[in-house]
């Protein structure tokens, strides 16, 4: 499994190169990747359906208990199949959709990278691995939303999605850590699930739940984090179909489902998820009716359905979870089809505004059929799969212990509004009076994927048995913890659920017929959204920028002198302050240390050089004096036996002098010391004397502590047998503490590159 994931990433990275082969036809090869992965996961269906999960573990940092663990049980397999099959269809669709834009290779790379990251997310059994993949999906989504990066709208929408989902992702990480503490220190989800009892009883349960929920809510566009999703519609339509309806936004739902055995079943769980979910599904459904852009209507109705999923997961009964799984499948199928259909309409008719479209069924029969079938599933008409989900939802809501009537009514209302949205998206553009002429049917690659998706919705509605047994039941079993047998059927039975469905559809149809009038009423809501969460986001970003500008202007004034003053003064205040409070840990030494004559002479030389550097009026002399200081210190190192250090100091000093001389050639001359006013000099003098005294006291304190040589002893002993080297300093740098050295050379590289950029920019060259 790990190999499959790695291959997926590798192909994704190579995608631009592959897509350029054979004048662009090579892109069709890229469809093979998701298709092959789908076949691979389909092969796992028999074993997983019986209850055994496929496991692949690689140890990463055993000392910290972090492993790369992939576990494919019913839930993961369900999602993996969804991701790969939809991926194949979307890639095929995009090849044609983006045929006339450049940079297709970049698009496919991002898309396939996203797919690989999403697969990693649903397969991960280790909390940290899950988090890494989670953030990877956020980043690739950012890249895809802002794909048309010439447009300001796309850029700001991308930034918004990244800021909202990533900052809440950080909050979620904190929740993960709390969760692992509550479970006794393990990071493996399967182990946490086994210890569910002690997790739920732990004092950290509530904070962990809230923090993790925030992350999941942001990713799945729940209120109040929902505002990024409609703006994400600036992305190319295949992206909207894949990420923002079928897969990425379901990641939060997946996380909640995955953690249900560990965190679910308690009153806080129910309260949090049911309330947020219900609120979201109502808000989303209402806002869907306000827009006339096809994609925004679909986006808001996605938010509504995500709210429904959250509510169903919060309810936690076996029937509600079964309903959630069916909704997941049905929603992915119909939403994907509708988005791809909307893209086809946009591509052919040039507009996404419903007011300008009508009667397209005559010119685009295949797209119209696909869209209509999908919309029927969305409205919940039998015998499509959407009808099954509705019945199951109502049944589950009615048997809840807490507030069944309220929640069921909310569900009915939300579904009714969804019916209206379905009408807006499918009936209005395709049927009715003709508004445009000369519109062609979309090419095969663009009507076939939505047709397949919509057709699957019909097929699975008619024959739900095999898919239920093989895919949905294992998923439910993975969440609930015992084998499940869901009753998925689209045959209407005479019961209260049917009545509710009839009420839903009737209300929806009525609402659709009065949609234009509804829209004018809903315009009053626009005023309210000025105070909504999106406004809060914009205000927060603006405030952040203002603070950044203020702080930069105050601290980064450009005077090196004042930077140094600030740094030294702060250090002095903090350390001297601490010593005043806790007492000085040093005692005056009782005698002068014994040292050879040449050491004393060296010391005198160093002090003389320092004084010369201060008092001289010529910059050249000052630099030479500093050089003497540097070389003198190197000599000191040599005298005390630190040869590597001495050599490095000699060489660094030489280079610094050369660079200083080069810089000096460009600066204006200092002039005699009397040019400066007395004041700054006194400050500097006082500060430097105080600083020198402070460091001296600290050094004396350090020397007077007993020296613990266990670490140096270990290194000295282990240097030859484990490090294969006799130079302990080098062995430590390169072998024992290699990671630190890696960080150091990265810093050196960054500094050099930064200096290079600055010097180049100043020269104004474009070499």
């Amino acid at each position: 499994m790990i190999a499959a994931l790695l291959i997926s990433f590798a192909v994704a990275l190579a995608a631009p190169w592959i897509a350029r082969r054979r004048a662009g036809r090579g892109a069709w090869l890229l469809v093979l990747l998701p298709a092959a992965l789908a076949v691979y996961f389909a092969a796992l269906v028999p074993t997983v359906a019986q209850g055994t999960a496929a496991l692949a573990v690689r140890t990463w940092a055993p000392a910290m208990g972090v492993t790369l663990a992939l576990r494919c049980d019913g839930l993961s397999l369900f999602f993996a199949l969804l991701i790969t099959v939809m991926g194949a269809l979307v890639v095929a669709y995009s090849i044609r959709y983006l045929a006339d834009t450049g940079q297709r290779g970049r698009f496919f790379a991002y898309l396939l990278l996203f797919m690989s990251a999403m697969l990693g997310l649903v397969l991960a059994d280790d909390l940290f691995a899950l988090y890494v993949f989670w953030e990877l999906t956020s980043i690739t989504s950012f890249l895809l939303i802002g794909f048309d990066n010439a447009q300001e709208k796309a850029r700001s929408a991308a930034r918004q999605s990244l800021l909202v989902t990533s900052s809440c992702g950080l909050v979620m990480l904190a929740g993960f850590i709390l969760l692992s503490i509550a479970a006794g220190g393990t990071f493996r989800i399967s182990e946490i699930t086994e210890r569910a009892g002690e997790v739920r009883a732990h004092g950290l349960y509530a904070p962990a739940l809230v923090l993790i929920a925030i992350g999941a809510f942001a990713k799945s566009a729940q209120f109040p984090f929902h505002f990024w999703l409609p703006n994400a519609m600036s992305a190319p339509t295949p992206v909207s179909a894949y990420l923002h309806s079928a897969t990425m936004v379901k990641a939060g739902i997946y996380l909640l489902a995955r953690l249900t055995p560990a965190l679910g079943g308690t009153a806080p769980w129910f309260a949090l998820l049911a309330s947020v979910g219900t609120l979201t599904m109502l808000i989303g459904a209402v806002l869907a009716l306000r827009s006339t852009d096809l994609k925004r209507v679909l986006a808001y109705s996605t938010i509504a359905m995500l709210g429904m999923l959250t509510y169903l997961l919060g309810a936690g009964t076996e029937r509600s979870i079964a309903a959630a799984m069916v909704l997941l499948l049905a929603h992915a199928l119909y939403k994907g089809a509708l988005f791809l259909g909307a893209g086809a309409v946009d591509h052919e008719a040039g507009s996404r505004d419903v007011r300008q479209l009508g009667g397209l069924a005559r010119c685009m029969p295949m797209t119209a059929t696909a869209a209509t079938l999908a919309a029927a599933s969305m409205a919940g008409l039998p015998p499509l799969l959407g009808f099954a989900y509705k019945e199951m939802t109502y049944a589950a809501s009615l048997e809840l212990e807490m507030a069944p009537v309220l929640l069921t009514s909310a569900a009915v209302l939300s579904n009714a509004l969804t019916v209206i949205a379905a009408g807006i998206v499918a009936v209005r553009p395709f049927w009715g009076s003709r508004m445009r002429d000369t519109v062609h049917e979309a090419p095969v690659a663009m009507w076939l994927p939505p047709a397949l998706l919509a057709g699957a919705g019909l097929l699975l509605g008619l024959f739900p048995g095999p898919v239920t047994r093989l895919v949905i039941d294992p998923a439910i079993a993975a969440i609930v913890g015992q084998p499940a047998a869901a009753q998925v059927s689209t045959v209407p039975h005479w019961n209260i659920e049917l009545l509710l469905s009839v009420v839903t559809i009737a209300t929806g149809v009525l609402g659709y017929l009065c949609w234009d009038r509804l829209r004018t009423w809903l315009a009053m809501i626009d005023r309210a959204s000025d105070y909504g969460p999106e406004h809060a986001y914009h205000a927060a970003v603006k405030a952040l920028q203002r603070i950044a500008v203020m702080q930069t202007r105050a601290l980064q004034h450009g005077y090196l002198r004042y930077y140094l003053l600030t740094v030294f003064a702060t250090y002095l205040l903090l350390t001297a302050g601490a010593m005043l409070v806790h007492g000085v840990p040093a005692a005056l030494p009782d005698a002068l240390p014994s040292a050879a004559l040449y050491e004393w002479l060296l010391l005198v030389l160093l002090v003389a050089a320092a004084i010369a550097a201060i008092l001289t009026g010529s910059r050249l002399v000052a630099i030479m004096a500093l050089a003497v200081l540097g070389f003198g210190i190197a000599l000191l190192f040599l005298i005390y036996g630190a040869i590597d250090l001495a050599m490095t100091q000699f060489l660094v000093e030489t280079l610094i002098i050369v660079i200083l001389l080069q810089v000096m050639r460009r600066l204006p001359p200092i002039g005699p010391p009397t040019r400066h006013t007395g004041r700054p000099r006194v400050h500097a003098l006082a500060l430097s004397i105080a600083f020198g005294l402070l460091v001296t006291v600290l050094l004396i304190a350090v020397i007077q502590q007993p020296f613990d040589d266990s670490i140096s002893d270990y290194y000295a002993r282990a240097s030859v047998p484990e490090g294969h080297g006799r130079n302990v300093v080098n062995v430590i740098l390169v072998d024992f503490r290699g990671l630190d050295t890696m960080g150091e050379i990265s810093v050196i590289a960054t500094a050099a590159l930064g200096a290079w950029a600055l010097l180049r920019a100043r020269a104004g060259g474009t070499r």
Partner: protein
Amino acid sequence: MSTLVLRTTAHLLIALLLLFSLFMLLRGHDLPGGGFIGALLATGAFTVYMLAFDPAEVLRITRGGHYHRLIGTGLATAAASAVLPMVVGRPLFTGLWIELQLSGKAEPLHLGTPLLFDLGVYLTVLGAALTLLMELEEDT
């Protein structure tokens, strides 16, 4: 400064310094030396060349002066030496060593991934120092 003397000795000095820098790199593990010191010595070589002749000369002998490529190569080498043990199943940054028995020597020659890492350090520091040095010379 007597540039004639410098120019005459520069060629010799540069060859010596470059060889010495490589020598320092290779012997770092058992005797004082190592990647940092070697890189700084090599930078010293180029500095002498720059002071003796034109900076344009240095650009010529480094074929255009794309020092940032050195930096990238160095970082990649260091990273590769860290990741290499993972290919054979050991954790990150494990030192892998092979021993070569040379004829006529009692002790075998140790070659390992820390040496590769040191080479990466050498290239990175060399690239960084050359960048800082040469870019300042650009527009005088």
